[in-house]
């Protein structure tokens, strides 16, 4: 123990004695460990963290893959969504579950302290908190008694975060009333700290009993509708019951529920026959692990986060290789010291231990600084992820797992960069070194070969990272230059949700009409349009359709659509191909009309003019096509920039009936942000209690839609640049060492008449081999990894030669730069001095 203490003392002294080496090594490690810690923190919060509930490993997510009929409201995976009557049927099974819960996220207009804010709420079943095992921080939580009769219990529970942020953690909030979506609700409690619901990325402000759905989403209640699918269902397995056993038990009960669904479907005129009916009734319940809650964000962002984690891991490996190379150079200079120690009786183990202690000290300093750096990086990343990525609840807090990861990365780094140099130094020949009277030993050819191999490894990893960065940057570039089908120039948008402020359908339509007129009258405004679905926000609305004169009805055909205003297309600059745009004459009482996009025209009317043809929304025997196609517009990106053109149709909002919200688009002749306040004031003049939200330019909307691509391209490019700098340092270090070692040889060559170019060629040859070996391994590895990640790319593929040429060019450039100083030094060697050189 005492000798270990001496090793520590000596190690610290050595690090302080060589501040240059220590600073470079610590900083290099800090960059590697910091970047890893930041990405791991994100990965941990999004992909690894379990719900802060009792025994999360016993939670399961219910899915029912297969066809769905009726209305489906999902966030990407329709199989996870159930109707309320079906949920209630499922929840009756208490033989395998200790409870099944259902939840639905909704937009909440929350009026407190005389101010109305837009927030998010979660409609939950009465057993939600009890089944999850979540306790109250204050008051009580919701119980089954709060959820027994529709509309009877206007009570809510605040999330801990919302309570502290909006009520200052005041315990006096209990039994206070607040206005939520125009309904007076009583606060009965606050949920425990840290609990933010069952879905990563969503942080509901309030939890409301499910039976209050009619009040929270007045446009659509759906609680009694067997075919209105909007609920995510999770359950807690009884102790000792496996997922397989629970599935088997559940599916016995599920079939009768499906039959009841079909019966109710038939009562709406939608009859399923033959194969379609069999397929519907053959659906099963499948249980998935639910310890992490719903995995929507994980599903969408998992591959990108893992790709970033792999890249940042490579950066750490490159950093470790660099430090190992520095240690090898220092080890060569310390050969005499270790020969003396060996002569005095130090075993190889003791010497390796001493060197490893130095490495660990270095790594601990790097890890500490890395943690600070990682925390700072995470802070930036978190802000972007929350504000632009729309993923709520991600924080830059360093928890025990992140600390553990940083410690493990530090320990692993020390082993990776310290062990081989220590072993090589400790195995040096004692008598040979001690015979040498010089103050430092000179390393043998094996030592130099090893250092060159390390640099070749660095080049290989750098090639890998650069190719990855190029692929992601190219992807972003391709998406950026995508033709959106609309113009984002000088276009600003905002949204309102009148129904949450008590507006019924006719009042909503009247409000939107009036707002359009007021906005069009603002100075500098050249066009105003509105749509129910905000463009490029990943929101979709779809329906089955019936097309007049179609040879056969495709009952599975699901087409997305939107409700838009007059002048919507001209404002958005979506080109009209034929027919006309909606006008103010298209009212609730005028003939029903629609405009379709080019993709829909190609799909349904490949050989005929669609203008004048009728369609119907929905399918079934009693559907009569009564909506006339009056125009065809060019395809525009609706949901995401990444999406390919797909059939889409538009209806005038005046003919739509129930509008659950409206997004306005205002085209200006100048910087659109200049009129942002005017827009707020205009809405405020119309209704002071109507909050507006998502006020931003459409360019920003595009940026937000490309958030994941921007993050991954930005971070991978940064990692690539960092790797290139570290590789350049590695190449420089080895070349500088080689030039010193070959000074005498170079002196002899110069004395014999070698020109500067010959000497320079000598140095470049050294680097040439290292680069060649590195890219020979790195680029094929990059190709193989790119093949595995092709789903992340857009408009570029793994086999794109340009990507690898760019990587190769960057590597050759950094190698040439790293070569410059050593080769210049080599050409300036004075033969007379060199020949005296020892």
């Amino acid at each position: 123990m005492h000798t270990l203490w001496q090793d520590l003392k000596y190690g610290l002294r050595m690090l302080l004695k060589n501040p240059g080496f220590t600073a470079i090594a610590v900083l290099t490690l800090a960059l590697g460990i910091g970047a890893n810690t930041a990405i791991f923190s994100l990965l941990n919060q999004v992909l690894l963290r379990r719900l802060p509930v009792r025994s999360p490993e016993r939670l399961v997510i219910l899915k029912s893959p297969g066809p769905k009929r009726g209305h489906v409201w999902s966030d990407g995976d329709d199989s996870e969504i159930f109707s309320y009557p079906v949920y209630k049927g499922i929840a009756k099974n208490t033989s395998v579950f200790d409870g099944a819960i259902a939840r639905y996220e909704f937009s909440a207009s929350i009026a407190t302290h005389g101010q109305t804010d837009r927030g998010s709420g979660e409609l939950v079943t009465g057993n939600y908190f009890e089944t999850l095992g979540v306790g109250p921080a204050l008051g009580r939580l919701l119980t089954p008694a709060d959820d027994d009769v529709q509309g009877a219990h206007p009570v809510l529970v605040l999330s801990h975060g919302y309570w502290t942020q909006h009520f200052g953690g005041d315990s006096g909030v209990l039994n206070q009333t607040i206005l939520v979506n125009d309904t007076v609700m009583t606060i009965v409690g606050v949920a425990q700290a840290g609990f933010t619901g069952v879905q990563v990325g969503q942080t509901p402000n309030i939890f409301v009993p499910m039976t209050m759905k009619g009040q929270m989403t007045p446009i659509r209640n759906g609680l009694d509708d067997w075919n209105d699918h909007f609920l995510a269902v999770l359950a807690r397995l009884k102790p000792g019951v496996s997922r397989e056993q629970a599935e088997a038990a559940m599916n016995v009960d599920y079939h009768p529920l499906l039959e009841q669904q079909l019966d109710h479907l038939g009562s709406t005129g939608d009859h399923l026959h033959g194969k379609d009916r069999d397929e519907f009734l053959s659906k099963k319940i499948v249980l998935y692990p639910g310890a992490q809650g719903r995995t929507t964000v994980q599903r969408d962002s998992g591959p990108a986060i893992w790709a970033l984690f792999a890249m940042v891991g490579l950066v750490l490996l490159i950093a470790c290789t660099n430090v190992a190379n520095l240690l090898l150079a220092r080890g060569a200079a310390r050969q005499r010291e270790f020969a003396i120690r060996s002569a005095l009786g130090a075993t190889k183990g003791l010497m390796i231990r001493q060197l490893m202690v130095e490495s660990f000290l270095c790594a601990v300093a790097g890890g500490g600084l890395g943690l600070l750096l990682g925390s700072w990086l995470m802070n930036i990343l978190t802000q972007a992820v929350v504000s632009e990525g729309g993923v709520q609840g991600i924080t830059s807090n360093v928890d025990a797992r992140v600390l553990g990861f940083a410690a493990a990365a530090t320990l692993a780094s020390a082993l990776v960069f310290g062990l081989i140099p220590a072993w090589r130094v400790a195995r040096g020949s004692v008598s040979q070194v001690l015979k040498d009277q010089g103050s430092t030993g000179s390393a043998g050819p094996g030592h130099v070969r090893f250092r060159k191999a390390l640099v070749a490894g660095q080049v290989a990893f750098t090639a890998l990272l650069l190719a990855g960065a190029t692929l992601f940057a190219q992807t972003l570039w391709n998406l950026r230059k995508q033709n959106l089908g609309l113009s984002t120039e000088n276009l600003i948008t905002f949204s309102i949700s009148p129904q949450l402020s008590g507006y019924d359908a006719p009042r909503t339509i009247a409000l939107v009409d009036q707002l359009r007129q007021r906005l069009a009258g603002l100075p500098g405004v050249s066009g105003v349009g509105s749509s129910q679905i905000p463009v490029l926000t990943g929101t979709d609305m779809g329906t089955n359709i019936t097309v007049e004169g179609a040879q056969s009805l495709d009952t599975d055909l699901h087409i997305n659509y939107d409700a838009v205003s007059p002048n919507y297309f001209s404002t958005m600059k979506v080109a009209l191909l034929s027919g006309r745009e909606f006008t103010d004459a298209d009212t609730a009482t005028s003939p029903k009309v629609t405009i379709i996009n080019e993709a829909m025209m190609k799909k349904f009317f490949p050989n005929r003019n669609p203008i004048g043809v009728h369609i119907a929304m929905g399918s079934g025997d009693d559907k009569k096509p009564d909506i006339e196609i009056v125009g065809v517009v060019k395809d525009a990106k609706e949901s995401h920039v990444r999406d390919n053109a797909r059939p889409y149709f538009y209806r005038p909002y005046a003919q739509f009936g129930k509008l659950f919200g409206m997004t306005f688009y205002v085209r200006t002749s100048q910087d659109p942000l200049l009129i942002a306040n005017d827009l707020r004031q205009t809405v405020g003049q119309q209704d002071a209690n109507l909050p507006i939200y998502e006020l931003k330019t459409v360019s920003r909307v595009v940026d937000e839609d490309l958030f994941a691509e921007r993050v991954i391209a930005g971070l991978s490019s940064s990692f690539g640049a960092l790797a290139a700098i570290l590789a350049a340092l590695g190449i420089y270090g080895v070349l500088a060492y080689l030039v010193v070692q070959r000074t005498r040889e170079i002196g002899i060559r110069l004395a014999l008449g070698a020109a500067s170019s010959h000497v320079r060629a000598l140095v470049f040859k050294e680097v040439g081999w290292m680069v060649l070996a590195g890219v020979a391994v790195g680029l094929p590895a990059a190709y193989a990894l790119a093949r595995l990640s092709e789903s992340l790319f857009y408009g570029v593929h793994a086999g794109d030669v340009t990507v690898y040429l760019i990587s190769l060019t960057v590597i050759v450039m950094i190698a040439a730069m790293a070569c410059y100083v050593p080769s210049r030094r080599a050409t300036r060697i004075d033969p007379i001095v060199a020949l005296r050189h020892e």
Partner: protein
Amino acid sequence: MVETSSTLIKMEGVKKVFLTDEVETHALEEIHLEIKKGEYISIAGPSGCGKSTLLSILGLLDSPSDGNYSLNGQPVAKLTISERTRIRNREIGFIFQAFNLIGDLTVYENVELPLTYRGTSAAERKQKVQQSLERVGMAHRLRHYPSQLSGGQQQRVAVARALVGDPLILMADEPTGNLDSKNGEAVMELLRDLHRNGATICMVTHDQRYANFADRTIHLFDGRIVEETREAEVGA
């Protein structure tokens, strides 16, 4: 002069061949050598005759290519690396021409090093280091670093380090080679005092004046022992 008694070192037919780039260099040939406890011998010869190679083998820093070598009655040819390290630490004290002190350790820490590797307790280490430095007259420089000392002082510290573990034999490789004559003489006097107090010393030197300090001188030439002289003969 202390009376010599049992054999400490015995070499029979020791050879050392270096192989570099397919060229064989015979550094030592048929070395037969016996050193008794308490004896002070010097190995002399011109540069390149194999003196340092012989001392490296004697000090277990290197291995012979052929022949037998016993240290204190124990054959050392087949010892493992760790066994050789242990013997070096406990039974041999080294004094080098270039002092070979570790520049980043203080005088105290340099002298303490062999005891640290031996696992000696801190209190005992402190006592022995103090005693050893007092023997060479360097106890007042405990906290100094080697760079703060003169060459003669550095070599005294090196001698203290060699003595601190009470080794069976001191191996000195040209101990005066890097010193001026005054400091050289002082170091040689120090070694003579140690010998008078019972130390066994084996010293390599190419300087006949210093070789004369020993009881016996082995003369090497081209890797072979060509002559052996004793103090009395030298004196005559």
